[in-house]
C-alpha cells in the first residue's frame, strides 16, 4: 500500500492524469479502510503540494497549477464521500473576489490549493459585496480572509472590505491577504492588508504559516 501511495503522490505531482485515475480506481476497488482512505487523501494532497513547489521553482506555470487542481478535485470527489469521519482541518479561510470584479481564475486555484492543504474554505464567489465578507467572518470566525482581484478597480473595494471588517471590530481577529496580478506592496499598504501575493502557491504557504503560528 505504501508504494502505491507514493506512486499516487508522484503521479499527481507529474500531472500524469491517466496514471492517477488508474491508481485511484485500483485503490478504491480494494475496498480501503478509513485509515487507508486518509492515507490516500494525504498522498494526493502531498502531490498537489509538490505541484505548488514546482510552480514556485518556475518548473510549472499556471496551466500546470490549474490542471493539478483539476486532477486533485476529480480524485477527491471519489475518495472524500467514502470517509466516515471528515478529516480534521488546519484552519478556516473566507475567500472571495472583491466587489465590482468578476474574475475568479486565480481565486479558484487558491481555493483548490487551500482545500488540498487542509483548510476549510468558505468561497463567497465573485463580485462579493463588502457586507457579505463581514457577515461571513462573523459567522465562521476564520483565521484568514483572502480577497482576490484582477482589475485595479478591485483595489478600492478591497480597501472598503478591510475597512468594513475593521469597523465591525473584527480586524484584529483575522489576517488579511490580497491576491491578484496587479497587487504589490503599495496596494497592500493602501488596502490595509497584512500580506499580498501574485502567486497562489505562495499565498497558500503564507496561510499555512499563519495558522501554524
Amino acid at each position, binding site marked *: 500500500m505504501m508504494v502505491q501511495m507514493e506512486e499516487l503522490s508522484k503521479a499527481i505531482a507529474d*500531472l500524469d*492524469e491517466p496514471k492517477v485515475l488508474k491508481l485511484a480506481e485500483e485503490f478504491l476497488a480494494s475496498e480501503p479502510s478509513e485509515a487507508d482512505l486518509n492515507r490516500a487523501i494525504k498522498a494526493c494532497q502531498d502531490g498537489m503540494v509538490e505541484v505548488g513547489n514546482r510552480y514556485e521553482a518556475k518548473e*510549472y*506555470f*499556471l*496551466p*500546470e497549477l*490549474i*490542471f493539478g487542481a*483539476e486532477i486533485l478535485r476529480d480524485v477527491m470527489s471519489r475518495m472524500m464521500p467514502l470517509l466516515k469521519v471528515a478529516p480534521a482541518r488546519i484552519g478556516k479561510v473566507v475567500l472571495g473576489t472583491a466587489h*465590482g*470584479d*468578476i*474574475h*475568479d*481564475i486565480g481565486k*479558484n486555484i487558491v481555493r483548490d490549493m487551500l482545500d488540498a492543504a487542509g483548510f476549510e474554505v468558505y468561497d463567497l464567489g465573485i*463580485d462579493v459585496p463588502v457586507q457579505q465578507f463581514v457577515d461571513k467572518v462573523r459567522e465562521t470566525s476564520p483565521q484568514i480572509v483572502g480577497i482576490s482581484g484582477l*482589475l*485595479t*478597480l478591485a*483595489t*478600492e473595494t478591497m480597501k472598503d472590505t478591510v475597512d468594513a471588517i475593521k469597523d465591525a471590530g473584527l480586524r484584529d481577529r483575522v489576517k488579511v491577504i490580497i491576491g491578484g496580478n*496587479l497587487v*504589490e506592496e*503599495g*496596494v497592500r499598504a*493602501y488596502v490595509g492588508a497584512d500580506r499580498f501575493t501574485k502567486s497562489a502557491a505562495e499565498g497558500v504557504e503564507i496561510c499555512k504559516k499563519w495558522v501554524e503560528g
Partner: protein
Amino acid sequence: MEKSVEELYNERLSRLKAAISLQEPDRVPLVFPADTWVAHYSGFTIQDILYDYEKLIAAIDKVIEDFDWDAVFPPFGIWPAPVLDAIGQRTMMVAGEDVAASSSFQFPDAPTMQPEEYPELIADPYAFIVEKLLPKRATELAKPFPRNELALAKGALYFGMYLARLGAAFQRWAQVYGAPLAVLGFTKAPIDMIEDQMRGFRGMCVDIKRRPEQVKAACEAVLPLAIRLAKTSYGGPPADWPPLFIPLHLGEFLRPVDFEEFYWPTFRKLIQGVTEAGFTCFLYAEGNWDPYLDFLAQLPKGKVIAVFEYVTMKKAKAVLGDTLCIGGSIPNALLGYGTEDECVACAKDLIDTGAPGGGFILSAGKVLLVPNDAKPENLLAVTKFAKEYGVYKK
C-alpha cells in the same frame, strides 16, 4: 513659427515610422493606450461613452488636447452598446448592465465551446463559429428565423453607424490635432482566439494537457480566419502605418516549451502572413515576457512594435533590438499608485536603457481602462519629462 497641423501630423508620422523601422527618430514617440480610461477623465461614466458616441469622441478629444501624445489610440476596447444590445451578447459584462456604470468591460471565464467540439472547429472553423458559437454568445442570435437574422442585421446596421462616426473622428483627429492613429484593425494569435472566444482560460489550460494535438490542429484551422480578420478590420489597403493592434494573452502563462509547441507556430505564421501582405503590427504583450524573447527575435525585422507589460528592458533591448521596436512600458500599478517622481524615474530608466539607437517608444504596461490604471498627473509628468528627455542628440 508655430507648426501647421499638417506639419505636426507629418512630423509625428515620421517619428512613429522611424521607430518601428528601427531607426532613430527626432525623439522617443509617446503612445499611451487610453481606452475606457478616457471616460472618467473627461467626466463621463463608461456606460455613457458606450451608448453616446458624441460623449465617447468628446472624451477622446479631451485626452488628445490635454496630453498631446504622438498618436491616438482608437477605442478598440470600447464596444458600442447598441450593437451589443441588438444581438443580445452575453459573454462580456457591460458597464451599467452587468457591472457598475464606471466599470470597464469584464470577461467571465465561461467557455462557449465544449472540448468534444474540437473536431467540428477543426473541420470548418467559420461554419462552427457562425452556426454553433454565435448563438451561444448572443441570445438574439439564438432565436428562430427570422428573428435571429433581423437581430444580426440590426446589429450590423448599428455597427456600421458607429464605424461611420468613428471614421469621421479619425479624420478630424488628423485634421484638427495633427494626430495620427496608433493602430488600425486588429487580430489575435490563433490560440488566443480559441482561448478568449471559445474555450476560456481554464478550458484551454486543461486542453493543452488532455488534447494537445487537437489544440494544435485547431490553431492551424483558425489561422486563415485570423489573417482575414486583420484584413477586414483594417478597412482599406495595407499600409506601413497605422499598424494592426494585436493583444497577446495566453503566451505569458505558458512554459517556454509549451509556448514553442502551442503558441508560437501559428502566431509566427500570423505575423508573417500579415506583414507579407503589407501590414505592420503593434503587439501588446500582457504579462512578463522575459522567457519568450528569443522567439520574438525571429519575427520579421522592422515591421513590429512590441509593448510588454513586464520585461527586463536591458535584456529585451539586447535580444530584440535588431528586430523589433520595443515599447518601454511604465507599469499601470506605478502610474495608478506611484508618485510623479517615481513615474518619471521609471520613464528615465526605460529611455536610458531602451531608446539608444532608436526602435523604441514609450507607453504604459497595459491598456488604461479605469481611473486607478493611471493618475492623470502621473501621465502628465511622464509626458512632459519624456518630450524633453527623449530627444535624440544628433
